């Protein structure tokens, strides 16, 4: 009983006080990417976070006193969506196919590939893409990871992001592939 209350409290605290981002149901920003509805498998890990701009601003307000740098980054965000899906035989083909389709679409829309890692034949398959606005700002970031054919991670961050703020974003959202991006590579 205690554990379920703790989880409830944690979930509520997460929504009301933690990080950032936005719903963006009809987000028309060019940095927004529609991953579509990703259904969970019958069993297995599934995480979906789709936060609204109002909540980002609220989080930025909370962070402003203790972490002004984080608050500034959050204040410029419009939408963050994170999906983590454990793969099984029933959904592997569909979801991996979806990830590949998203990558292809980004490529055709002129997104810049910042990181591409492919460990063959098994291992991680990682791609980080950015939608640049001029040379100084990023309108959208998309991280796609197919981890050893066992798990898929999709992240879309929309906003007005300065290249040097990526490290802050990576830390706040714990997005490993973003942590190693060199700012110089974006300029």
């Amino acid at each position: 009983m205690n554990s379920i209350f703790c989880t409830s409290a944690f979930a509520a605290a997460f929504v009301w006080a933690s990080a950032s981002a936005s719903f963006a149901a009809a987000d028309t920003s060019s940095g927004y990417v529609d991953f579509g509805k990703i259904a969970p498998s019958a069993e297995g890990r599934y995480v979906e976070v789709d936060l609204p701009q109002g909540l980002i601003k609220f989080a930025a307000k909370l962070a402003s006193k203790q972490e002004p740098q984080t608050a500034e980054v959050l204040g410029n965000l419009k939408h963050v969506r994170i999906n983590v899906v454990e793969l099984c035989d029933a959904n592997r083909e569909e979801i991996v196919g979806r990830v590949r389709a998203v990558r292809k679409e980004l490529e055709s829309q002129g997104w810049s590939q910042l990181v591409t890692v492919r460990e063959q034949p098994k291992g991680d398959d990682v791609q980080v893409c950015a939608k640049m606005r001029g040379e100084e700002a990023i309108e959208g970031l998309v991280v796609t990871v197919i981890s050893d054919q066992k798990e898929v991670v999709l992240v879309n961050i929309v906003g007005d992001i300065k290249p040097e703020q990526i490290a802050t974003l990576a830390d706040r959202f714990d997005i490993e592939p973003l942590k190693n991006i060199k700012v110089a590579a974006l300029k």
Partner: protein
Amino acid sequence: MNSPAASSKPRHQIWPWIVGLALAPVIALGGMVWSACHLSRDATALRRQIMAASGGGWHTRVQFTADRTALGAVRGGLSLAKDLPCEAREALAAVRSASIGVYERADTKSSLAGGAVLADADKIMALHGWKRLVGVRESGKTVLIYLPAAAEKATPSRICLAVCDRCELVIVAAEIDADALAQFALRKIDRHEFAGL
């Protein structure tokens, strides 16, 4: 002597009014008690959907709704208590209303019906004007958090969430004063920093 015209005048029945006025507070009180013992409309919809998806067999352990009036009364009562920590007052001031239900079932072998519970819950909550913000399923536990779909760019003021595993289910719907909550959080940070010096 009364004229025939005067005697045919309709008499105003006063008793129905007296009875009505006497019963009104009882009915109102009954309504308040009934409402206090049930979940809000949105929380009920979410609870029903999850219970249906999980195969039933749930029993109510705790279920109540504290609306603005009830919470106002609690706040008023607590204002008389001198020893109450001011943090508790501030936290209570940030909550406008809350509806909470805790349910359990003995059949721990039953499980939630895979991904169907999320899709079904999303569908019913969308009909009530909610959009899912967080959906997590891990180690047999499922967490669903909804915010009003119409308030994407505004500071959220209402929240509805469900946390469940094989044998326990918690549903919470609350209306929160986000500004008061932010002020409370900021003051807490200040106190924490001050205490750390």
